[in-house]
């Protein structure tokens, strides 16, 4: 190493100058020019790829359900026709569910054979409804089919109401009989 090199090495600090005053402020201003803090990447790239793959799979499953499964159904239900009819169907189904629960509660029936017969009758009504769904599929938006469906629901609720009335009558009669027996 020459004398010059040695001298520079030894006095390196002395050769250095400070930038013109105010350089910190000028740099701050320039720094603010940079795009604001990048979003901290929570997921590594692989995770992002996986997330996208999951989304694609889910959405294609959903599309499959909507497009294909729907067409594979045996028919079109009342609720599929329009939002208004959907409300109608929901109303009747709710009614039917309540009645069904009442009928199903065992103490109303004197014996289980009777109960099974009634429930079979009700499920036969469901099969009629399923036929109508098929009809509606072959004749979309046919008012006659739609009206028949609504009539069917109304009828079903009526039948169930009658059934419940009859059953309650039987029950009260039975109570009277047992009361009389107790009195004797």
């Amino acid at each position, binding site marked *: 190493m*020459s*004398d*010059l*090199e040695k*001298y*520079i090495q030894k*006095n*390196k600090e*002395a*050769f*250095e*100058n*400070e*930038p*013109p005053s105010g*350089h*910190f402020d*000028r*740099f*701050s201003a*320039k*720094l*603010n*020019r*940079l*795009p*604001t*803090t*990048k979003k*901290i990447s929570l997921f590594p790239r692989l995770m992002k790829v996986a997330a996208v793959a999951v989304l694609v799979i889910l959405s294609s499953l959903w599309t499959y359900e909507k497009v294909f499964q729907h067409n594979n159904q045996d028919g079109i239900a009342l609720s599929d026709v329009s939002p208004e009819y959907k409300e109608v169907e929901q109303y009747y189904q709710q009614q039917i569910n309540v009645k069904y629960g009442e009928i199903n509660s065992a103490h109303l029936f004197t014996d289980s054979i009777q109960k099974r017969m009634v429930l079979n009758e009700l499920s036969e009504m469901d099969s009629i409804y399923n036929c109508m769904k098929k009809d509606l599929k072959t004749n979309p938006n046919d008012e006659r089919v739609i009206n028949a469906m609504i009539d069917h629901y109304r009828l079903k609720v009526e039948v169930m109401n009658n059934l419940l009335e009859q059953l309650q009558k039987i029950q009260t009669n039975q109570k009277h009989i047992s009361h009389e027996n107790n009195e004797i």
Partner: protein
Amino acid sequence: MSHPEQSYINLNQEIIDGCRQGDKGSQFQLYELYYRSMYNTSLRIIKDTAEAEDIMQEAFLTAFEKINTYEGKVSFGSWLKRIVINKSLDAIRKRKIKLSELNETTNDFTLEKETDESEIQFKVENIKRAMEKLPDGYRMVLSLYLFEGYDHEEIAGILGISSSTSRSQFTRAKQHLLKYIKLDN
């Protein structure tokens, strides 16, 4: 350099990681650490204080924007310094001074006999003044070798010349420098 693949562990790794995430606080901290050294590197090439400051600051911004290309194979300071040098050289080129002038001998005065270093009393201010008098080509080779610590192979890569040119230019540049210092004294 026995393990070129080995990642360089920086003393300020946390600050660098902050900069990777675009954190403004970390970016300013890094500036505070390196501005002085980077400014002087640029100043030695460009000679103008305002321009050197601007180039140095722009180099920091470039480094922050391209921080994902920093692989950690060299120290962060070395990586940043290369950006500063490249930007300074670009500015010099814009001044229409071609680096090919490096190959031409500048005949400010004839160097009849070699100046003997031992005859000269070195002073910081003398050396600085003499450096400023040198033509850009000479000054660049000298400052890259004497102040930045690059070898001739590295200087050849930076300036786009052969390493033998770098060597011969360095010898000539140093002779000019010594002459200027002697005249100053």
